[in-house]
């Protein structure tokens, strides 16, 4: 599996993501600076990492979503390449219009940084195929703006089409219908606030995140 991590100014989980991808695939990902306009030939998996790209100026992920590389990421996603956006990466995906909805300031007004329990809402994607539907997993979250919001029609559509991948087992940030992660229509793009790349080996306190990457690897 050939992987790439997009690096924006202010990304801070890009190296965590790179370590996770190397551990699971056995090969280091290509680190791609956001000013690039092309992705490596034959890339199978693109990760948009967490962080505070552009200092969250204007809106979280807003400036990054207009970076030159995003056009290439969109084109790759249209071809079926798997794209994972975590935390700030999820915000970038919604700002780029690759996933519906928006991530707003946590309703509690707090920055939330701790491990949380998630429920796997659907295991119908390459990212979630190695989990059981309804299974509870523990992933860390670290965000101030993870309050997923969309209009009722969009929320109904996401649920109706089985595109909610993960929910918070108990509400943490005010997200509509406790949504923690959603899939694109073709299920090859996943955006989520919790960090699977920080839960891949026992030293992390668990390895629930590992299967997310292994699922994609197994599908290819």
């Amino acid at each position, binding site marked *: 599996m050939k992987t790439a991590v997009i690096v924006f100014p202010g990304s801070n989980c890009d190296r965590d993501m790179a370590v996770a991808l190397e551990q699971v695939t056995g090969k280091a990902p290509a680190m791609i600076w956001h000013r690039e306009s092309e992705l490596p030939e034959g890339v199978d998996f693109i990760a948009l990492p967490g962080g505070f790209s552009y200092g969250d100026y*204007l*809106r979280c992920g*807003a400036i990054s979503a*207009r970076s030159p590389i995003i056009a290439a990421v969109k084109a790759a996603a249209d071809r079926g390449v798997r794209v994972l956006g975590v935390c700030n990466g999820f915000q970038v995906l*919604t*700002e780029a219009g690759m996933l*519906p*909805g*928006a991530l*707003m*300031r*946590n*309703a*509690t*007004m707090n920055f939330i940084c701790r491990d949380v329990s998630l429920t796997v809402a659907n295991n119908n994607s390459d990212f979630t195929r190695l989990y059981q539907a309804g299974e509870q997993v523990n992933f860390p979250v670290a965000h101030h703006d993870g*309050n997923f*919001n*969309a209009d009722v029609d969009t929320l109904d559509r996401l649920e109706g089409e089985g595109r909610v991948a993960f929910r918070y087992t108990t509400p943490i940030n*005010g997200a509509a219908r406790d949504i923690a992660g959603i899939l694109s229509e073709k299920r090859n793009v996943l955006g989520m606030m919790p960090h699977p790349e920080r839960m891949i080996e026992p030293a992390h306190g668990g390895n629930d995140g590992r299967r997310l990457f292994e699922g994609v690897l197994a599908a290819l």
Partner: protein
Amino acid sequence: MKTRIYVTLKNGVLDPQGKAIHHALEGLGFSGVNDVRAGKLIELDLDDSVTTADIERMCQQLLANTVIENFRIEPVAG
């Protein structure tokens, strides 16, 4: 030519920042404040060649996230 863009949260969208300001006002002893909504003001200094349609596109494509925000364009006289 200066133009101001007012970006505000759509009705019904929860505004935690507005709520925090509201609480702080109450903490200072101000009463009678029913609600607070916080938004953004973006001021653009533009060439005369820039049309209203251009500004509209700037708002749609970047300045506002129309999933959750409304925008209002207001030219500044002088």
